[in-house]
């Protein structure tokens, strides 16, 4: 058995095929990292070969560097955490010059998460990133405020979502993944909007907006007051939304939200996810994504399942 390559041989027989297709690209296995929880990949390379991952998704980038929100920025909550990093990042250019060369050296798919304050910024960022060498796909984060329209979130109004996805679609020929916000009434509708606007895949869920209060000081625990809830606490919501989107669109769905173990990941795949991402789980242990990859292999071999295609969306209802 050869680990990490996606195809497993026993003697001459192909046994397990872990590879999955996301739009025009093929990942050797379905295990990705969730944006903002894996930095630009370099820190994790200290603990395992990041080339074994299906894809590395980097921290969200904007056209210009962003300094983010004041601290405190994180607080633990029951089986989860709130963060208000505020999209701090080094900017698209510095990423291309200083971080991308390192990622190119690894045999993995590089997905760049990005965002903008305006539609123009989205488009410009997409164009710059598309011209760089070694980026295989773009993931656009639409859970961020729209400076032009009263700071409401791009990803919660279907009309605005359609507009921004359309604009980015026209500006890149790279694989385009649209990352959906869970803070909406109808996630399946948002997935359809993204599909219609030309997305090659949707990924979900981003964090659910939450808040915590320090009862001693009577202040919010995050300087930014509100933050995004992630981790195992939100997994049931994420699995439900993945299933709803899987039933609503034809493009692949990338599932995330609270995945720490392989069992968690398999839940998402059975519910319809073509690939999955480990987020907060990376903080629980830096080996989480490797544990998930190895655990999925073991599960499939124990259950006699030969390919992810066979597992995906195999939920038996009724």
């Amino acid at each position: 058995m050869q680990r990490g390559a996606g195809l497993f041989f026993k003697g001459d027989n192909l046994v397990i095929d872990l590879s999955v297709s996301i739009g025009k690209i093929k990942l050797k296995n379905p295990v990705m990292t969730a944006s903002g929880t894996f930095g630009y990949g370099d820190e994790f390379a200290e603990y395992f070969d990041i080339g074994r991952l299906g894809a590395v998704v980097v921290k969200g980038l904007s056209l210009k560097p962003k300094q983010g929100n004041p601290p405190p920025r994180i607080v633990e909550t029951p089986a989860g955490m709130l963060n208000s990093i505020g999209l701090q990042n080094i900017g698209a250019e510095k990423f291309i010059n200083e971080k991308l060369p390192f990622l190119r050296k690894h045999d993995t798919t590089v997905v760049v998460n990005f965002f903008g304050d305006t539609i123009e910024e989205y488009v410009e960022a997409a164009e710059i990133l598309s011209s760089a060498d070694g980026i295989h796909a773009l993931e656009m984060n639409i859970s961020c405020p729209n400076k032009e329209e009263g700071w409401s979130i791009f990803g919660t109004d279907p009309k605005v979502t359609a507009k921004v996805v359309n604009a980015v679609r026209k500006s890149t020929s790279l694989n385009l993944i649209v990352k959906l916000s869970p803070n909406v009434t109808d996630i399946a509708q948002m997935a359809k909007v993204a599909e219609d606007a030309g997305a090659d895949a949707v990924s979900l869920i981003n964090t659910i907006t939450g808040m915590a209060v320090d009862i001693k000081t009577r202040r919010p625990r995050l300087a930014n007051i509100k933050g995004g809830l992630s981790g195992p606490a939100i997994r049931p919501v994420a699995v439900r939304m993945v299933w709803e989107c899987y039933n609503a669109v034809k493009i692949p769905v990338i599932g995330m939200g609270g995945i720490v173990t392989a069992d968690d990941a398999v839940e998402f795949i059975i519910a319809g996810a073509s690939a999955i991402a480990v987020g907060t789980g990376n903080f629980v242990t830096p080996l989480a994504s490797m544990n998930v990859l190895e655990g999925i292999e073991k599960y499939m071999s124990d259950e006699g399942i030969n390919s992810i295609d066979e597992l995906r969306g195999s939920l038996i209802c009724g």
Partner: protein
Amino acid sequence: MSEIFRAKIKENRPLTNHHYLLTLHPLINIALPNPGQFFMLSVDESLDPLLKRPFSVHRTVEGGFQILYRVVGKATKILSAKSPGDEIEALGPLGNGFPLNISNSENVILTAGGMGIAPMLALADKIAGLKPLLFYGARTAGELLCLDDFRDSGIEPIISTDDGTCGRKGSVIDSLESYISSAGSNNFGLYACGPKPMLSSLSKFCAKHEITAYMALEESMACGIGTCLGCVVKTNEGYKRVCKEGPVFSSREIIW
């Protein structure tokens, strides 16, 4: 090089009602931690608490290292119930640690408030030859820890307590400031660790007297390895990560 590893609990000794001295023996070889570096510890497999918790290296010992901790919440409460032989997962050593080559070696001063004493013993072990002074403040006499360990290294702690139950009554900063003001020299090498208000007023004092202090900061952490950007502090070069560019910063760069 930091590692993710399992470690066996060799000892978990209560020092007071809510302070414990934990001795860990890593099951693999890890890099020797420097004073001021820290480890992230998992207390068990439950998802509540979810994240690892950061603890400074208190001392390196034969076969491993020690953590001095105070029980303040969920994780430390669970940790305090662990027994010798139990295993936990750890990540480290992490962070930069104290710079040891400070030039003005003649007047080295360690300043600790409350749990800020934890990293100071590792530091004292390294620089005992420089005959540092230790200014150590706590709320009350019963919370003063490791006094004999410092004495064994030839350092007689200069103590202050908020309630005056031991040493000088008042804050450790008062005590330190009156010493420095009367010393008639600015040639000090200062190391500090303690609560934010203490470090912030120490920074102001140092700025006034043009002294540089190296101080170990604390911020809530998720990853401990520089990826989540959760642990930043404001510096004159923008936000820096306590877990990566710190936890030790020069008092000149922090914007309080």
